């Protein structure tokens, strides 16, 4: 009996161990959106890298600012040179943790989550809490989030002449299709 119990514990532990590890998405989507009277401004990147720790619920995101593409070349130029100063601050980072994380969240249908962590944009770091979703969609682990940021909070100076034309807040959309990694 004891032996059986021991084997059972051993098997359970090894299953647990095989489920350990991380999830990664190397081509995660991030966009910035702002509505202006002249036309909408949308910058999109499909090159963000994100890692989700399956044990702790910690999530890390990194994006290279120069990978954001805009409809107009001029917008891209302004974004990188005037606003984000991409040569000086090439990456944006987020390191956070899913609130009330349990491993079941990684195998369950899409559900709402909240993530709190440090967002570093333009060399300025701030703690933010953002809403999102996490769960299985078409057999794959998918994470999404939509939240607003105020450029001024991150020391991004928008000249007065265009300040009124760009919305006070930028809407950020994130979507990542995760794959298991480092089992």
């Amino acid at each position, binding site marked *: 009996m004891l032996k059986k119990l021991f084997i059972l514990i051993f098997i359970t532990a090894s299953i647990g161990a095989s489920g350990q590890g991380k999830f990664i998405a190397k081509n995660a989507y991030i966009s910035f959106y702002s509505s202006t009277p002249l036309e909408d401004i949308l910058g999109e990147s499909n*090159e963000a*890298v994100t890692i989700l720790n399956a044990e702790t619920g910690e999530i890390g995101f990194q994006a290279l600012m*120069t*990978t954001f593409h805009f409809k107009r070349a001029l917008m891209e130029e302004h974004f990188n040179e005037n606003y984000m100063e991409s040569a000086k601050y090439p990456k944006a980072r987020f390191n956070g943790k899913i609130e009330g994380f349990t491993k079941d969240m990684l195998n369950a249908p899409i559900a709402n989550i909240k993530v709190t962590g440090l967002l570093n944009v333009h060399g300025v770091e701030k703690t933010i809490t953002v809403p999102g979703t996490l769960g299985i969609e078409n057999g794959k682990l998918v994470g999404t989030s939509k939240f607003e940021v105020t450029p001024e909070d991150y020391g991004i100076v928008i000249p007065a002449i265009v300040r009124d034309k760009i919305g006070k807040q930028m809407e950020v959309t994130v979507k990542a*299709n995760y794959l298991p*990694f480092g089992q």
Partner: protein
Amino acid sequence: MKIKYAIILGLLAILIGAGIGLKMFFKPHADINKLKTEFKVDASGLIGEFEQDENTATFKYSEKVLEISGKLVVKNKLSNGTDLLILEDEMQGISCQLDSSWSAANQETIEALETGSSITVKGICKGYLMEIKVSPAVVISK
């Protein structure tokens, strides 16, 4: 008479100014095919440079036009339709997102690419995030 000329001159200046402004506003994205290659590199050598000193390599290559030769290890399509080619190493190699208009016109070339073979891509180096990001890119030889 002088006033008339001044008005015409003023209007002309406004028109030229507006023209330049509009041209700048509608300036198209650079065509990767027509950009001059700044560095011709070997994939593993480029990875080595980034692994050794990311800051120096980023400063040297970021936003530059590179021709990179290496082994194709992954050929994939992202959910938005973008063709993705990865050189040398699936996790920590060189990730090239192909230019959408080039891709659309060259689907046959992309389909003919075989993983394991050596190819050369031309694209803009964006920097390093676990892997080297190159976009937009085009395949120039296989």
